[in-house]
């Protein structure tokens, strides 16, 4: 006869089970920590790289806008003045800078005229020219003009470029950096928040300091507009039909399986489809947000349909029975009772689908959204057919460029994209909280 077991002493089996449970908990916690760590590392890296894109170095000097050189015809007519290209403006700025430095008594040791000019961005003459063409009355005046500093100078003030690295860099000399530092001490150069990064258009590979996300943000917004307008009604209607009205037979089973499969199709396939159908067959323009929106609509539809069906089937059948029992028609029971209860789930699914579409790159590459676009698209609806870029494609585009300053820009654009995605997901959570009802 075995002695009576005491509850105060754990038997071997219990001990083994408790050990297994403790082990499993530790593993689970470890997995969570690894995931969190990876996320923190990722966001931290992007932040460290990209935060600089939101600050920009500007220098402001008085510039005499010489009427004889900028308007040789003397007509003050922007059409005539346009004959003077940016190359006509560049020497003007260089002279103004040299003169201002002399007046302020800042030494220009070992700096030739070309090196001096390189402190100013190549974008500055173009900006000055645009300003003058817009307002010819400025000619003859001496204005304090604020212009972008060159990419390397900007990098110096953000810590990307140092005196050591400048010695090995063909694009910048340590003397330039010393001068820039002197100018900053004199208050000619300052670094501040860079609105142009969010509102300005893209710039060429030689002018990273001027590159902005404006066109890409607008293009992405236009595409989201198209996706929302098309995918939400079509997806919800399809889901309602399949869930509430369609007979349950082999055909609807096949449709269901295929919708689920469609959600798993690689996105680049949708790009090929869009290229073949919307551009080659339907003749829609390349690089246009409307085509991008259509392609992303195709991609988002399965997500919305699946989310909507899940939301509809989560509504208790007793609600349907109650409505039908009162003599409501099938459609009345769906639209008066089932759909309002499913709305939070549908909204959440839609926003998650939109967020997915916002971050999608591959299909957009195939329909020409990767093109270099400097002109802002017009307001919708016409603007939907104008060439535009998109945020993720802009990130991809910038990472391809040679100048290291574009690494910073690409990381900055990633931050903007992440910010938009987090905002959309927050909206989804808030809407779900707001409209969730008990039954």
């Amino acid at each position, binding site marked *: 006869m075995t002695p009576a077991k005491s509850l105060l002493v754990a038997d071997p089996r219990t001990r083994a089970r408790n050990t297994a449970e403790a082990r499993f908990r530790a593993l689970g916690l470890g997995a969570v920590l690894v995931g969190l760590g990876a996320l923190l590392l990722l966001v931290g890296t992007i932040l460290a790289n990209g935060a600089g894109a939101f600050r920009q170095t500007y220098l402001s000097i008085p510039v005499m806008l010489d009427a004889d050189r900028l308007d040789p015809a003397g007509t003050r007519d922007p059409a005539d003045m346009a004959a003077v290209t940016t190359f006509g403006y560049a020497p003007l700025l260089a002279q103004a800078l040299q003169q201002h430095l002399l007046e302020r008594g800042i030494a220009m040791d070992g700096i030739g005229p070309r090196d001096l000019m390189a402190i100013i961005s190549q974008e500055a003459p173009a900006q000055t020219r645009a300003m003058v063409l817009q307002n010819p009355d400025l000619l003859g005046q001496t204005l304090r003009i604020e212009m972008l500093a060159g990419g390397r100078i900007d990098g110096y003030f953000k810590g990307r470029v140092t005196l050591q690295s400048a010695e090995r860099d063909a694009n910048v000399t340590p003397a330039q950096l010393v001068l820039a530092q002197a100018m900053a001490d004199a208050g000619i150069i300052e670094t501040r928040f860079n609105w142009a990064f969010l509102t300005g258009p893209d710039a060429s590979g030689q002018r990273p300091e001027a590159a902005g996300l404006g066109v890409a943000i607008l293009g992405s917004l236009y595409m989201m507009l198209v996706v929302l307008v098309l995918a939400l009604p079509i997806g919800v209607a399809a889901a309602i039909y399949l869930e509430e009205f369609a007979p*349950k037979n082999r055909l609807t089973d096949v449709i269901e399986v295929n919708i689920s499969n469609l959600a798993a199709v690689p996105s680049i396939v949708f790009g090929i489809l869009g290229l073949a159908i919307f551009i080659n067959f339907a003749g829609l323009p390349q690089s246009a947000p409307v085509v991008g929106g259509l392609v992303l609509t195709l991609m988002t539809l399965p997500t919305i349909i699946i989310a909507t069906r899940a939301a509809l089937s989560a509504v208790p059948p*007793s609600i349907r*029975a109650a*409505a*039908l*029992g*009162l003599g409501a028609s099938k459609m009345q029971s769906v639209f008066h009772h089932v759909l309002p*209860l499913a709305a939070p789930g549908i909204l959440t699914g839609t926003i998650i689908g939109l967020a997915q579409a916002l971050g999608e790159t591959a299909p957009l590459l195939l329909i020409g959204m990767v093109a270099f676009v400097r002109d802002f698209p017009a307001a919708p609806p016409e603007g939907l057919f104008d060439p535009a870029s998109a945020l993720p494609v802009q990130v991809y585009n910038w990472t391809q460029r040679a100048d290291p300053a574009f690494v910073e820009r690409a990381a900055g654009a990633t931050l903007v994209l992440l910010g938009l995605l987090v905002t959309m997901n927050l909206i989804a959570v808030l809407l779900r909280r707001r409209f969730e009802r*008990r*039954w």
Partner: protein
Amino acid sequence: MNAMQQVEGAVTHHAPKISAKGVDVFYGDTHALKAVDVEIADKMVTAFIGPSGCGKSTFLRCLNRMNDTIDSARVTGRIVLDGEDIYAPRVDPVQLRAKVGMVFQKPNPFPKSIYDNVAYGPRIHGLARDKPELDAIVEKSLRRAALWGEVRDRLGAPGTGLSGGQQQRLCIARAIATGPEVLLMDEPCSALDPIATAQVEQLIDELSSRFCVVIVTHSMAQASRVSQKTAFFHLGELVEFDDTDRIFTNPGDHRTESYITGRIG
């Protein structure tokens, strides 16, 4: 009890409200209900009793064609309401269900206000021309469901916030607001506590003076308390249909007797 018997005596001369002949129901290959013949009289309570799965709820759901909403269900036979075959091809179940209201086993108010719950039926059927008329219907229905006194101050509160018994009375108010002639109740008290059950039973008794009430119940005590006629179903067959008193005191079929005395079911 005397009053009830008088009512009963008065209606036996009239034509039945609902008459079913040879009703069979199939769920896919399952033969759920076999050749049921029954005549249900107006202005009284008819109870369907029997063990689980005997087909009593299935038959109840035939009376307002709720079985139509189940894809695999198939109903044959003839069910006549006021002389009209409700399974005739021209009958729209939507119209039928306005005339034959239903109360379900579990209280299922809409997640809307108490007012909107009751007003929904009249609204979709266009029973009220304006707001005062709708208000009147809502008040009358809530009064008949013995709920008006408890909710008159909070008609805008959600119906789902009421207690279980109140919710079930709200569902009854909702069902009678469309002005039905028949009220079907599918185990209306099975989710309620004894006090709420007593309230609903009293309500059923009151309602039977205006409506033809058909109630499915698991509780034989309830059937004997509220009904004048009782039908006993077993394994998909209607075994016996008679006055409630007779069923419970002197049943004609040995299966009925076994069930009532607790030997089967």
